[in-house]
């Protein structure tokens, strides 16, 4: 379980010595095997929040604890999927997938076996020896997802993972992620700026407000699992999406 209590984060601004409050008094929990999506207008600090949970940047006040232990940095129970894929251009698909395993000292043949299994899972058979530049964006992010899954994390932190993809690819990957997750449930925190994506994937949607970033509301998504693409036509889906839009719209009116 991820527990975030009274979390604040300030970024210092060089010129005047002052700071910008990126996150203020954030409080929420993510239960084991739960899929929580985070949505909010740009500047609400959702990516900052995810990076703090990942242990990549420090925070100022409050605490972030996983299974009761306050985090001090990255840990083996977490893995991150990045928006820009963050693949090593000098390594082929297999080597990219095994990166996390190798860093953690897994024996090489074990890495290979695990990577082959994941190549199959994300549907990249036949591309094992390709380099990232030879792959489409969607395939690159499937490598990013496979790399994160390879270390078998309890918690998957996803930072707008499909944000850089075109809509068709994005929808295919959403469906693939849904199937994967419904087959093997992990705790997932998924940052997005797409309302469809937030409702489609999440058990709960966390709505954030900007400047400073705060949690506005936690919204339950009472849609059945496993979810099919048809779920988008259901009343509940449309209702939550409209509710999100009303709120997001109100936040941005007067700003743009």
């Amino acid at each position: 379980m991820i527990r975030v209590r009274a979390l604040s984060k300030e970024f210092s601004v060089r010129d005047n010595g002052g700071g910008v409050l990126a996150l203020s008094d954030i409080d929420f929990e993510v239960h084991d095997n739960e899929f929580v999506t985070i949505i909010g207008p740009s500047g609400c600090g959702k990516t900052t929040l995810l990076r703090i949970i990942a242990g990549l940047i420090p925070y100022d006040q409050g605490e972030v604890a996983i299974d009761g232990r306050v985090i001090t940095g990255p840990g083996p129970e977490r893995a991150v999927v990045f928006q820009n894929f963050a693949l090593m251009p000098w390594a082929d698909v297999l080597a990219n997938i095994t990166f996390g395993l190798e860093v953690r000292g897994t024996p090489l043949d074990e890495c290979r076996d695990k990577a082959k299994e994941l190549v199959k899972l994300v549907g990249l058979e036949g591309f094992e020896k390709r380099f990232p530049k030879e792959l489409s964006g969607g395939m690159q992010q499937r490598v990013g997802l496979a790399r994160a899954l390879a270390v078998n994390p309890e918690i998957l932190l996803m930072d707008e993972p499909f944000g850089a993809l075109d809509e068709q690819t994005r929808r295919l990957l959403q469906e693939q992620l849904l199937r994967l997750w419904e087959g093997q449930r992990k705790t997932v925190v998924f940052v997005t700026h797409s309302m469809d994506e937030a409702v489609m994937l999440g058990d709960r949607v966390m709505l954030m407000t900007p400047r400073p970033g705060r949690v506005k509301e936690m919204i339950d998504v009472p849609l059945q699992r496993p979810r099919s693409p048809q779920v988008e036509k259901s009343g509940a889906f449309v209702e939550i999406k409209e509710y999100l839009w009303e709120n997001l719209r109100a936040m941005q009116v007067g700003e743009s």
Partner: protein
Amino acid sequence: MKKKNLPVDWGLRLAVLIVAVGLWELFLRSSQNFLLPRFSDMASGLFHLLFAEARFWQALYISNQALILGFAISVAVGIPLGLLAGRFRWMDRILNPYVGVLLTMPVAPLIPIVIIALGLGIAARVFIVVLFAFVFITVNTRAGVRSVEASLIEMAKSFGASEGQIWRRIVIPGAMPAIFAGMRIGLGRAITGMVMVELLLVASGLGRLLLEFSGRMQSDLVFATVLAVIIEALALLAAMQALEKRITRWAPDASIG
């Protein structure tokens, strides 16, 4: 993968050579210049050097001692300095002014001073070669490290990579194309340094041979010696490029050599 048409490439290269040699001969015919050798003279001079002049090989050996030692030291000093300056801001701040000085400083006027300080032996020649070459390797290596995407380093950290693993797995592979570019430029500079120090004061190696030939007005042999140096340089660059291709197959083609 882009296709390369080798026969066409080499045909065009040959055409450039033929045009250049033609212009050369034309210029000599019209200018009545007795000192400049014809291309054919130079070619036969080269033949003479390679097969009839024992001192050429000896001179080449002596010069290459300074070149190889100096270039090896340049790589051994230049790459680590560049890596540190690229990865650590504080190191960069300390080194920056000195790198600027070394980049812009004309090295040739320093040669007499170096020779006074280090004597006429190989040490002075090696030192000059290093002065010519290493800072270019440092600058390129630093730029290469800087070009490594911050998101890759963050990715490595997110999997719990140690600083050492980040260096080995991310920073050095990412900087490799730029390091090779720096070594190519450095090699060119090292060869310049090698010949210059021998020409200016230390009469040894190829420089001594060049001075002798020009003293005797044997301009065909002067040209032939220069040509030999160029051929060696091209061979070394080609070897380095082959190594680079093997190591950095992933990178876009950035060769300048």
